[in-house]
């Protein structure tokens, strides 16, 4: 079965959540004849990415988001259900997260929320000053198959894609917001890096990666776009342009995953080999810089010397 995907590489209006919801509606009306099954929006699309303390003024609870998206869906008179992946700032009581939702509109509603775990707080980024870390990476079932969401820097750490793949994900959705930097090459350096990351993760685990990357200038910082859909061999199947709004369409065929994994059974190998390495993972974490002032016994195999 082909799953028709549409990556909506759109530019939000800073701080205008209602306007941005309506922008999603406009885009969906414009592309409805392409009959997408799943549309994927970028990180923080509902508000714009760089907000500093403004996060708390625009964040939504899960139920507010679900209600807003349900109302949007109702206004579209869409033919059948529509799945949406959408980045937004989430409020849960007095705690704020950089989150992305998976919604089955016209069906079961909100299926999953991923809260970004790796919050960049260096250079131009300052996330952890304003928001809290999520602490889960998990796959979940949609009407099309098993998928996972990772947000931006989450995806830059290979362990997150590995966990998602071991948890059964066959598609990883990656909403991102990446300001352009590094203008020496054919494309901004971060676009080149993003593309190679999607190729590496997709090929390592034999799955699809759908990257939806924000565009628009935010006070001099140019969110770069360059969204891609990358297939299980690590081939980029389609790429959106940099800097400008665009819709990237792509049919995802999950039936291709088993043959690709048969050729390159790296995920099965990981499943078998990872337990052998868990003690080393524990050992290095026990001795990591974070914990270095707390002496702990070294576990794992004893070295034979002599």
């Amino acid at each position, binding site marked *: 079965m082909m799953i028709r995907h549409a990556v909506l590489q759109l530019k939000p209006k*800073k*701080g*205008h959540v209602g306007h941005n919801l309506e922008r999603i509606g406009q885009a969906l009306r414009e592309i409805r004849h392409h009959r997408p099954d799943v549309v994927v929006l970028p990180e923080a699309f509902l508000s714009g990415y760089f*907000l500093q303390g*403004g996060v708390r003024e625009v964040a939504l609870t899960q139920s507010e988001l679900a209600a807003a998206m349900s109302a949007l869906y109702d206004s579209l008179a869409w033919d059948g259900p529509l799945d949406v992946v959408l980045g937004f700032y989430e409020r849960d009581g007095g705690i704020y997260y950089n989150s992305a939702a998976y919604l089955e509109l016209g069906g079961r509603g909100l299926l999953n929320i991923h809260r970004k775990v790796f919050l960049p707080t260096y250079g131009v980024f300052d996330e952890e000053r304003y928001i809290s870390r999520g602490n889960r990476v998990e796959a979940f079932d949609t009407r099309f198959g098993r998928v996972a969401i990772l947000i931006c820097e989450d995806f830059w750490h290979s362990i997150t894609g590995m966990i998602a793949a071991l948890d059964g994900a066959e598609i990883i959705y990656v909403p991102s917001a990446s300001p352009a930097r590094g*203008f020496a090459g054919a494309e901004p350096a971060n676009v080149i890096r993003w593309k190679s990351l999607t190729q590496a993760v997709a090929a390592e685990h034999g799955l699809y990666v759908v990257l939806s990357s924000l565009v628009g*200038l935010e*006070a*001099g910082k*140019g969110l770069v776009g360059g969204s891609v859909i990358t297939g299980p061999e690590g081939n980029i199947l389609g790429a959106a342009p940099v800097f400008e709004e665009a819709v990237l369409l792509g049919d995802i065929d999950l039936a291709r995953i088993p043959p690709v994994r048969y050729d390159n059974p790296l995920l099965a190998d990981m499943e078998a080999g990872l337990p052998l390495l868990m003690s080393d993972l524990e050992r290095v974490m026990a001795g990591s810089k974070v914990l270095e002032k707390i002496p702990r016994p070294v576990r794992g195999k004893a070295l034979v010397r002599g």
Partner: protein
Amino acid sequence: MLKVIEAAPGREVLELNYPLVAEFLTRFIAEELEWRGYSRAVVANSGGVDSATTIALAVRALGPQNVFTVFMPHAISRPESAEHARLVAEYYGTPYEVVDITPMVEGYAAQTPGITPRRLGNVMARARTIVGFDKGEQYHALHLGTGNKTERLFGYYTWHDVADTGPIAPLGDLYKTQVWGLAEYLGVPEVVRGKPPTADLEAGQTDESDLGISYRRADVILEHYLKGYPDAYIVGLGYTEAEVARVKSLVNKTHWKRHLPTNAVVSTTAIHEFYLRPLDFRLG
């Protein structure tokens, strides 16, 4: 016989993909003006490479008819500045006007016995700020900052001059060396980009004699210093200890100049200290 291949060592690169930079800066001008409610720009046209490059980008972003270039001479300005300012406006097809700031500046100077050439130069620079903002009002436009990264890092400009006060500044993250490269790509006339840079505020002034180092050498030192390379590494690239020291000294005497004025903090809602919002934040 073994085939031997040697990998290139990694290094910092100042050379940029100028078509890509131009595309980005063009978009920057259009989008940053748009959300502020503008589609037109004023550029103080000095006849130098920074203003010419800014004009070229603004023309790409907005169309030549929407870029109001204003040459603001003082009686001591070099004659070639006028020629070059007109040449740039004609080359890019923009509106061009001349506002002679001599009466403004000399009106003040006449009331200020003993004013030095340096002070008078600063008055000229800030008189141009007044004109830049007023021309913006006249044309429903914003005036563009024209400062580059090298002069910003050196604090080599008059605080709040017309180049410093433009609300939108496309060249502010480009070293002078990179502005030259971009100017060449954008077709800025050679006579403009090839001449020695000068603030043209005092007779005989050039940037590089004021700074005590050439831009091309300074920019390599700056890039390495900002990225955290130790002095010895930079000296190892072929720069003298005196050059490195000069560059570091200029940067570290002028951090204040790259910020807004200092406000005394007495509360937990002090602006930019506790109450933090990006400049493009708005609710709706």
